[in-house]
């Protein structure tokens, strides 16, 4: 978080806290002073004191509190959201950088590429973003209000502290239960939802076999039942909340009654009862704020769960960020005598192979599905494993190769942005961008979409079109090591070959490695057969 943002966030939070205190204070005083005024004038009205009673002063105060409460609440909402938004920006940018460094991104099958998982993740991020606004700020103001009124009660009606303390203890006890049992219920909800989601996902992926074998309705019903059990667990949490809220709503009135009863018990009469009455009505006004107690508890437990979950992504993330500075020196030859192939989870695959990658000569990795082609490409790219390759008289470590390689993933996607941003070509001239789009036969489609500065999204493009945009990125890349994973997937055969030949001719001076499951007839290509 930059210093400027941090200080602006701190100022906003201070302001929000100030408004929150003012709003609560005005609300309490509005209730209390109005009641006190009525009591005083009722007593004064009995005698000649009515004519000397300074009514306008009190009435002015009441109007002040009324307007003050409205204004301060508005200010509290506005500055609170402003503070939360300021924090949100900083946190999300930090989170993006941290996620980019998380090892999970480099493995196969990016989990947050899936809509349902992404939605869960965003919920967690939002629970973190708003925890302070939903829990921290109201808890702070409530605590201060409580402290002041308890102090006043101790002075005016000490005996009332007994029921007030008892009830507060009950609230703390119930709150603690919500925090503990509620956290468990929430954890159970989350895990049931995850289980149901993966089960439904598996059933959806096998819809045809399941329907054919008559097993669909059973599998689908079980997945949905997991969601419904999650709803049930959530119901448990809400019922705990209801208990806390019930005790919370009794608090204000009971405190008020206690104060009046204690004052009466102490023998106060007539005008002596007016200050306790002010206090009693203040307690009732504070009781309104107490109604949010269960929401505060839930916001806190959700924040903790979210923090935990997001923390999982960051586990084992390397401290420093990989340098993506482009090393201008092109390695002439990249060699590894006995490369032990590894699966993304680190398991060894097959026997070590010898690799010799040279510019100008395309290397094809051919193998059946599951033979580890993508993993080997990622290993060469330095995304998985920490193998060192020889490059002439130098040694290129995995992170150095990462900086030099462009990895064209077969499941690469379109980012929601302009076409220009999607090509990742920095400030390359328009003509170069169009040439790249022509080469992958996407120029017509992009013209149609509105040119280089048109805003595009994933769902407007077919898989084949997304793949061709992906190949245009490769065309525009200037990195010396070019690794293409199934570059012709989702394209029909002739178009795939045409584009690939154009691309290879354009990348003539680079080291190019292609993985494919179908052998093709590329000239001058060296083929490596991969066996599992």
């Amino acid at each position: 978080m930059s210093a400027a943002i941090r200080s602006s966030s701190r100022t906003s939070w201070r302001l929000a806290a100030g408004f929150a205190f003012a709003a609560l204070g005005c609300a309490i005083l509005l209730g209390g002073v109005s009641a006190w005024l009525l009591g005083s004038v009722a007593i004064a009205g009995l005698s000649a004191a009515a004519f000397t009673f300074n009514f306008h002063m009190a009435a002015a105060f009441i109007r002040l509190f009324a307007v003050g409460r409205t204004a301060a609440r508005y200010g509290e909402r506005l500055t609170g959201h402003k503070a939360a938004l300021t924090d949100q920006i900083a946190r999300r940018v930090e989170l993006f950088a941290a996620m980019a460094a998380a090892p999970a991104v480099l493995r196969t099958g990016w989990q947050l590429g899936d809509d349902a998982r992404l939605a869960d993740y965003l919920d967690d991020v939002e629970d973190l973003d708003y925890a302070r606004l939903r829990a921290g700020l109201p808890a702070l103001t409530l605590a201060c209000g409580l402290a002041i009124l308890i102090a006043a009660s101790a002075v005016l009606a000490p005996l009332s502290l007994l029921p007030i303390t008892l009830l507060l203890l009950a609230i703390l006890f119930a709150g603690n239960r919500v925090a503990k049992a509620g956290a468990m219920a929430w954890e159970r909800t989350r895990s049931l939802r995850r289980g149901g989601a993966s089960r439904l996902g598996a059933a959806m992926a096998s819809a045809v076999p399941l329907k054919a074998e008559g097993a669909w309705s059973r599998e689908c019903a079980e997945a949905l039942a997991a969601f419904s059990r999650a709803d049930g667990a959530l119901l448990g949490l809400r019922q705990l909340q209801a208990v806390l809220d019930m005790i919370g709503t009794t608090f204000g009135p009971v405190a008020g009654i206690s104060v009046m009863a204690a004052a009466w018990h102490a023998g106060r009469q007539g005008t002596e009862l007016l200050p306790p009455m002010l206090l009693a009505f203040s307690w009732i006004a504070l009781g309104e704020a107490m109604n949010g107690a269960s929401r505060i508890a839930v916001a806190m437990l959700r924040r903790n769960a979210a923090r935990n979950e997001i923390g999982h992504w960051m586990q084992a993330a390397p401290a420093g960020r990989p340098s993506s500075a482009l090393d201008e020196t092109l390695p002439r030859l990249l060699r590894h005598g006995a490369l032990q192939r590894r699966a993304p989870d680190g398991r060894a695959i097959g026997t070590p192979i010898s690799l010799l990658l040279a510019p100008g000569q395309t290397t094809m990795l051919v193998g059946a599905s599951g033979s580890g082609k993508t993993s080997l490409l990622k290993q060469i790219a330095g995304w998985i494993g920490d193998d060192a390759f020889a490059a002439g008289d130098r040694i290129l470590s995995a992170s150095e190769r990462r900086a030099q390689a462009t990895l064209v993933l077969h499941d690469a996607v379109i980012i929601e942005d302009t076409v220009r941003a999607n090509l990742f070509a920095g400030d390359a001239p328009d003509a170069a961008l169009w040439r790249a789009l022509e080469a992958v036969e996407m120029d017509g489609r992009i013209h149609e979409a509105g040119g280089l500065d048109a805003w595009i999204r994933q769902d407007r493009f077919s898989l084949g079109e997304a793949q061709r945009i992906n190949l245009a990125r490769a065309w525009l890349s200037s990195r010396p090591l070019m690794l293409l994973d199934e570059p012709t997937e989702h394209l029909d055969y002739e178009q795939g070959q045409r584009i690939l030949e154009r691309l290879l001719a354009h990348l003539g001076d680079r080291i190019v490695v292609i993985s494919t499951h179908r052998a093709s007839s590329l000239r001058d290509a060296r083929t490596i057969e991969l066996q599992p």
Partner: protein
Amino acid sequence: MKTPVVPAPVPDPAAASPGAFQALASASQLAKRGLRRLLCLQIARSALRLGFAATAAMAVGRLVMAEPIASWLVPVTIALLLAACIAGFAADRAQASTETAVSIGLRERAGKRLDETPARRLQSLSVGGVIMSMQRHPEAIAGLVVGHRAASTMMAAGPLLAVAALFLVSWQAALLVICLTPVMILFFALIGRAIRRRADAQERAYGRLAGQFADRIRTLPTILANHATSGEEAKLARRLEAYADNTMGVLRIAFANAGIIDFFASLSIAILAVLLGLGHLKLAMVPGFSNLELWQSLFILMIAPEYFAPFRRFSEQYHAKAEGLAAAGALDRLLDTEEVVAKPLPVLDVLSLELPAHGLVAITGPSGSGKSTLLRRLAGIEAGGIPALGSRRLTAEDIAWVSTDAYVPEGTLAGAISWNAGAVDPNRLQHVARAIGLLDDALLPGGLAARLDKGGANLSGGQRLRIAVARAQLCGRTVLADEPTAKLDPGTAGAVRRMLLEISTRRLLVVATHDRSLSGAADITFDLTHGDTVEVAA
């Protein structure tokens, strides 16, 4: 950041066809009984709270004025307070359990709907979208038809009760509060319009930036592969800031909504306190506000905020409405879309198949000629004419389906092979798994105890297919196989071919395939190469 106003698609009742899912109508129907109970409890809570306010005001007023207090008053006050809290507790629980019941019921109906959905349509749906719909949308819709509905009804019932209570003490005070309401509603309408205008303007100008964080997280591997992390980070910061600035602009107006309720609630207290005070001082004779007992004026003071509370609760439900409507629309769209129209394949409609009790039947032809469609029609899971089958008719119970998208439950390899295959002899399981090469697979170490992830995430298509073949071998049913040897390395393809041929000596095996060495061994071949004729070779 959610803005308080989300333009929600309004479902058009006229467009709903008789077979439409109509999530909202279903949910309302499911909610009916629970909602009635919830409303009764909420009304009881409001009435009891008013009763508490009346008795408490009476006790305090009389105490201050040194008037005698009836001995029943204090216990009744406390009893009313406790009863109000218990009614509130019961109402909260009723709301939670009704919403849960509606959500579960709606999900069951949606599940039935998915059962009726043809496999081809299921395949065309986005998996993530279906999961989101089934998990989240029923809950959001339940919030709309229960919580929001109750709050909007209470907006009528709550103030009515409060006014009735005021009326008992001073009809003029009741009138004053009622008179404030249209003014408040007028402000509401004005501000509501302003919010919508502002939100629409934001949507037009900044709508693109709304999901930027989510999008960049979704596309992280692509960004990383293109070395764009730091550039995207800076851009993200800029865009989030621009969006947040604009959101604050919308919020400034949106919060005015809550501000108005606050203002009128505060204002009513202030006006009433001043009028009542003047009445007590006997400085001004305001009709309805003079000659009142202290307890009566305290009572009026306590009731006035109750009048406005339901409005506040309702305005807090704004999200529930927008989210519920959006969820209902999404669920309807998901479950109602027309059947994906399959490419017409007239040749299949006139096809008459005489399938033998055992043997290998091959369906051949180029991609798109209808091989898989014919196979699905045989299984009865594809709309369109089921080819005449002679004396036999396949039912789901005697079909084993072999393809690369075979279902694999989470657990061990042994469990996956014997899933849905009836009682399996462990020795045969071991034998079959070895024959198909699943036990010496370097990518699946651990033999039969090998751990399979959820959804078979750690399996390749080839491994899935071999599990399906082994399962088909064990279960003794008719086998329908869709391209069983494509995308396999030659060694594995050979093992799959051998096992399929072995199955075909005892049972019927229908295979859609490009693989010459498999179709060459067929007893009967249906060639769909030419769209209008079918060559049958025995």
